[in-house]
């Protein structure tokens, strides 16, 4: 929607605005993300020291696994805010934002579980452990998968958007609650190895981690914008089809 506004603007400001927009356009964001993620991986493997504790080399997946996890939570947070904004304004753009964010959040959550399982196999010798964080992501996946079942069973657009917004709000509240609940379970075979990971971090670890983290966040924002653009195009196409049909 921004691009259509800038076309009508006076030439000089339009140039500046479009230059700025190109800098933060979805493809540009994805390029920055690619550079930062590659840099994060390089820093993680060659600059950050190999973990001195029991995890050793397997700890390197930390620079991918944790940024993915935090981005998944960010995505759910975006959907939560979009849900509140939708219920307040009834503006369909917040519904589109909510769906796009949850779709990406679900994708990132699956990645969290996949990388978590790889790490689990390397560190604990088992592909799956009912460890609080991994379990929370599994439940989040089920929860946000249900979001799409809910969407598909409502035809009327406004009602679908309302229920989706409502569910996105409730689900986001449930994620931290679930995490606390999993801590109530009797401790399993595996102690929570992650505790103190952040506190014990060497400054070189921290640099590699931050680079990867920023890269992953930009990757998410780039994908989100691409999704939103696609959703707008789909809507426009539907509109045109309807006009042709009538």
């Amino acid at each position, binding site marked *: 929607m921004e691009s259509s506004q800038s076309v009508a603007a006076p030439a000089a400001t339009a140039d500046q605005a479009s230059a700025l927009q190109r800098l933060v356009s979805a493809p540009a964001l994805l390029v920055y993300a690619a550079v930062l993620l590659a840099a994060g991986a390089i820093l993680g493997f060659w600059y950050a020291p190999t973990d001195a504790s029991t995890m050793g080399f397997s700890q390197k997946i930390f620079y991918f696994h944790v940024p993915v996890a935090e981005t998944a939570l960010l995505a759910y947070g975006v959907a939560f805010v979009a849900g509140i904004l939708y219920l307040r304004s009834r503006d369909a753009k917040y519904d589109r934002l909510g769906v796009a964010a949850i779709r990406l959040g679900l994708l990132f959550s699956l990645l969290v579980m996949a990388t978590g399982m790889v790490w689990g196999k390397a560190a604990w010798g088992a592909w799956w452990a009912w460890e609080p964080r991994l379990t929370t992501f599994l439940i989040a996946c089920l929860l946000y998968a249900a979001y799409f*079942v809910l969407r598909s069973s*409502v*035809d009327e657009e406004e009602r679908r958007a309302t229920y989706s917004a409502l*569910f996105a709000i409730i*689900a986001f*509240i449930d994620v931290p609650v679930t995490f606390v609940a999993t801590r109530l379970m009797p401790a399993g075979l595996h102690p929570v190895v992650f505790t103190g990971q952040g506190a014990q971090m060497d400054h070189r670890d921290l640099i590699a981690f931050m680079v990867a983290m920023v890269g992953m966040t930009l990757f998410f924002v780039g994908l989100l914008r691409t999704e939103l653009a696609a959703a707008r195009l789909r809507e426009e196409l539907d509109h045109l089809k309807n006009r042709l049909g009538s």
Partner: protein
Amino acid sequence: MAAGAVGVGVVELPPARTSAGRQLYTIVKKDVISELRTKEMLLSMFLFAVLAMVVFHFAFTVRADTDLTYFTGGMLWVTFIFGALLGLNRSFVHEKDEGCLDGLLLCPVDRVTIFLAKMTGNLIFLLVIQALAVPIFTLFFVKTSYAADLPAFLAVLLLADVGVCAVGTLLATIAMNTKARDLLLPIVFLPLIIPVLIAATSATTGIFAQTASLGSLGAKLGFLAAYDVIFVLAAYGTYDFAIGE
């Protein structure tokens, strides 16, 4: 005093708004009376609970001397959560199919009062089922007396039920307005209720197996209470949007 001056043919209307407490009571009473007329929901929930216990017995007794004590909390709460699902699905079916909900929405009643009333109704039905099913469950599966922990056990039941009914009533309202209806409810309800299941299961097992320390039991009760507060408030705040125009 003004009533005396009202002329013939003028109908004296009751006060425009009755108190929210009275409205709540009236709706709950309506639900209880209509259920007592058929008793179909209570009866099927109770039979389901007993059937589930029998199924669990055969599913888990792998040897003659199998000790199911450490499964008791899980068996009890799986039974109640699935039993509650049956009731939650039913609680809006009549409302919707008989056009009762439209009548209810036309009444000068706050939507949130409707929520609290439906939630209270569901809570009452669940508590009735539990009052009948828990003694049977105890007879079947619990080896040692838990009389000393009875207050704690009742607190677990009540706190977990409030969470189940708050989330369940909100989601049942949404599910009723979708194409999938009763198919949708378990899919959206179960992942949201897992925290309650975790806390209630481990607290109940601790009580039945006599392994719970006071501290761990207190933590679980505290967690259940916090869950109730969070989700009753969340459902209360969003119910207006769930029930629709």
